[in-house]
């Protein structure tokens, strides 16, 4: 990972309830930020299958289940949990500082 991050201040951490996600628009891309009991993770908000809003999915452990057709993605890596499923999602470095969620929009990574 880069040593120098370009953090963008997104929102107060308290705006994202534990084990839920919220969408945020960044340019033409919609991101979904999740609160895993105090640890925050950011992924693209669009399921590669049919574009479902992943921010509305149920969180299970460290993954999220798409509300439309149940595709299942790991929030840390962006990879599908079931190997046979579709493509990977981009993940964005995310941290919390002084109660504010920071996302590095310049350093999205997509596995494979």
């Amino acid at each position, binding site marked *: 990972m880069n040593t120098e991050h370009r953090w963008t201040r997104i929102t107060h951490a308290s705006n994202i309830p534990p084990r839920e996600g919220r*969408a945020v628009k*960044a340019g033409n891309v919609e991101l979904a930020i999740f609160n895993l009991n105090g640890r925050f993770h950011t992924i693209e908000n669009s399921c590669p299958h049919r574009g479902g809003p992943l921010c509305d999915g149920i969180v299970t452990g460290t993954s999220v289940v798409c509300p439309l057709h149940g595709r299942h993605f790991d929030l840390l890596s962006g990879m599908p949990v079931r190997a046979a499923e579709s493509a990977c999602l981009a993940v964005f470095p995310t941290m919390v500082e002084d109660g504010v969620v920071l996302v590095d929009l310049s350093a999205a990574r997509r596995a494979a």
Partner: protein
Amino acid sequence: MNRIVVVGNGMAGVACIENILKRSGDFDITVFGDETHPNYNRIMLSLVLAGEKQASDIVLNDVDWYRDNRIHARLGVAIDSIDRETRTVIDAQGRVTPYDRLILATGSSAFIPPIPGVDKDNVHVFRTLDDTRALMAKARKGLKAAVIGGGLLGLEAARGLQVRGCDVTVIHLAPTLMERQLDATGGEYLKRRIESLGIRVMLPRQTAALCGNGHVQGLRFADGEELDAELVVIAAGIRPNADLARRAGLRVNRGVIVNDYLETSDPRIFAVGECTEHNGQTFGLVAPLFEQARVLAAAITGEAARAFSAPNPAARLKIMGVDIFSAGSIDEAEPGVEVVRYEDASLGAYKKLFLKDNRLSGMILVGDVADEDTYMEWMRTGADLSSLRRQILFPPPATDTGLEIADMPDSETICGCNGVRKGDIIKAVHAHNITTLAQLKERTRASTSCGSCSGLCQKLLRAVAPDFSEETKTTLCSCVPFSYERLREIVRGQKLKSVEEVLTVYGNRKGCEVCKPALSYMLDMLWCGDHDEDRSARFINDRVHANIQKDGTFSVVPRMRGGVTSPDELRRIADVADKYNVPLVKVTGSQRIDLLGIKKADLPDVWRDLGMPSGQAYAKGVRMVKTCVGSEFCRFGVQDSTNTGIELERRLENLFTPHKFKMGVVGCPRNCAEATVKDLGLVGQDGSWQVVVGGAAGKSVRKADLLVTVESTEEALEAGELFFQYYRENGNYLERSYDFVERVGIEKIRKETVYAPEEEKRNLLDRLRRSQALAHDAWLERDRPVNPTQFVHIEPLEKVGEPQLV
């Protein structure tokens, strides 16, 4: 020469009698027990304390058993002395009973450490049914309880008291819990798990005194620290009851000394169970006692006697949700012992296997006991594990389970607790046509004590019984592997009030999209709102009270009771459609109007502008009542279906159900509103109503079953309510009423709803009313969102650029 007297009516004594009876009917047997209860399963006392079993559930031999086997049972009679000269025992009333062979099965007592103050009131031990009852009588919410002893029994007592609402602290002398069965790491994992249940653990602590004036008020430790306690349970180990033997002049050390055939120093007197000492070893677990009982019975009936050797120790902590299993030798320092271990702190899982010459000699399993059967099998057979070394921590499941069974000789013991061998089970299966595990338990006793062989018994049944039927109780999912019924009991009994709590205590802590909504429903149904509602555990539809569509927008269906609306409502709906550019306005099959393509952020405003309640068209809950015109206008109508439908909808609206719940009310048998294919339908006839349930016209088509025919409208509504609440309480999540009716059977449903005793009916209705009083229109959250971002898209705090992929 055939009079046998048994002193002690506990598990060891009665096991001897049972084993003797199996071999010979020639004996005249008398048994003395100082407890007044028939023989019960002492191992299960902690389950009685925890409220998981009733005292009557743990009786092993009821009064009929003694009578049927012509055993003279003298219960509540203690034996004072033995006269070895005259071969008689003398009881507390001075009565003399002669014997030819005497079996001492006097058991053990709780060891009470010599601490000042142990004689104070509210200081208890936990050994007998009476002890258990005394604890149950005293335990109450908020009572400060201290348990001295962090072994198996102490921990089980602590959990039992905690489940009953006490504020419990466990005090243990050693630096880790259950140090006889676990190593330090395993003990630490156990401690964390126990603490996560809300029990305080203090170790190492030496109790110096119990304080208080008459009643115990607290403990003082050796270092001067103090702890408040209104109830103290001492579970610091057991002492063999060897006094009677000692007074009779038998050889006694810590316990009554026995040889390999369970003979004491007097060849006419035998001893068995926790009162004995064999090769310097005393006993506290059940498996060796049963083995002793078998050896003793063989010796006493003159069968070619085999020598007793203590089986491998195996211990399991019986606290639901805390998986601890330990077996074999767990001494790492033993020469030639290799250790293989695995741990995952976040899962709370720890496994440690002890190998000697590539054979499994012991194991510690904490938090993950899934492979226990395989390991026990390896240990029992002494399997050479050289080729399996890479898979030893996560052994692959057997591909042919029948093979494992076929490989096993008939003499192989299946149930170590009750000494049931493979051959016994096969004989019983054929002789009694056994097809279920429950029948097998009843016939053979297999799997009735610790239950660890139930998996093996199932496999055996599957392989042997021609008509084996698995007792399929659908488990919720692998995250919380309990049946719905059991889970409802757990949630109710243990007063669990949040999904996270259930998942933490009884599940894998993570949960999934299947169990989280199911548990959410269960909590809502059981606690009627008196619980922590966790929106993160619910499907998006139930977080924002609208139905998500393929493009991520939502559909909005306001409630239109009975399909009856007004010009005013229609105008508002039209205005909303204009104002929010609603792409599609559609009349649904449920006599309502659907506004499709609404953005999440607009939902609160749309609801406000509509000024109508939620139609719950998104929820696993009460949808609507479809009605026909009825007697008010229709020339054929014989009942007022519209107003009855509106009233039915009012009584049930806003409630959740296991799956969606649709209703219909029609004013005559022409059935224009299709009431006979609804979850609940009222079909009007001249002077009466038919109440029908379990109909469907979706994925399945099913004509509803007649629940009951009644005369008045009020009776019809009440019958509908009874069925509704019964389904709410007994339906599995995502089970539609038509599957529910087929699973349970309409006769049973009738018996437990409309034909139930008045009191039960009233209770069902009371619970429904209570839920209804706490339910509310979900769309009121437009003004009181559960969190500030429930409906909004987050606006970044600063300007953001186009994201870049690296």
